[in-house]
């Protein structure tokens, strides 16, 4: 979806996700439930970094996950819903 909006790729998730995942996260495989495209986390489109990281399917823009760093917490949603995990990093 080349539209000129500034975005990164999923390699920028190596730092923030490795704080809450014990394994290297960017090689993780993900399948989009919307358009069935699949591939590594590193290939997803990442918007942000502020107010937070929004990670989307390169094919259809479905939200794979969202990450917000807030004080001593990292908030994480998986998928397009709104149910968030709040991890303490302190």
């Amino acid at each position, binding site marked *: 979806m080349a539209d000129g909006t500034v975005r990164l790729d999923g390699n920028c998730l190596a730092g923030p996700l490795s704080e809450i995942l014990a394994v290297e996260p960017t090689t993780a495989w993900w399948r989009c439930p919307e358009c069935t495209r699949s591939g590594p986390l590193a290939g997803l489109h990442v918007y942000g970094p502020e107010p937070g990281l929004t990670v989307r399917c390169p094919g259809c823009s479905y939200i794979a996950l969202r990450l917000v760093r*807030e004080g001593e917490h990292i908030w994480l949603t998986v998928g397009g819903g709104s149910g968030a995990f709040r991890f303490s990093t302190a």
Partner: protein
Amino acid sequence: MNSLSPGFRGRRRSLAERLPPGQYPTESFPVLSAGPTPRVSTEDWTFTVTTERGDTRTWTWEQMTALPQQGIVQDIHCVTRWSKFDTRWRGVPLDAFLEDVATEAGFAVVSSYGGYTSNMPLEDLLDGRAWIVHTYEGYPLSPEHGGPARLLVPHLYLWKSAKWVRGLRLVIEDEPGFWESIGYHDYGDPWREQRTWGD
């Protein structure tokens, strides 16, 4: 009607007094994105108000621009700490869309083309404090800044002012929006520095 909003009075205050805590002034207009920029033509654009009972009323672009328009001069404040003084807009106060709506709802969820949402108490959208705007500094609002039309609620942090606005859902119970559901403050008053959920 072609009035200037109360924010115009702010010009008599010093810039320091107009800067909420923790903010810095900027001349630029940064663009923050949570997804691809939707391209919505004015032919396709609609704005729909849905009540808590499911009743709807929809305005086309032509109908929206036929409503009484206001010139608006307001300071805007982003949660990422930049503030911009005396931004000039043109649009329709939310009162015009809500005046004939029968509701007992206390809250509103604003939705956008592209899927973004933000929530706020309904009263924050009334009494000339919020607008659907389509013109910025004399030009049609660009897609990057939310065109063809966005919400403008300048007394709250700018994430509340949903770009590419397409509707407003009135609800009895508050529902967190896109950023409010992942750590950002439910209300977002810049003067009380309500940035995140713990503030």
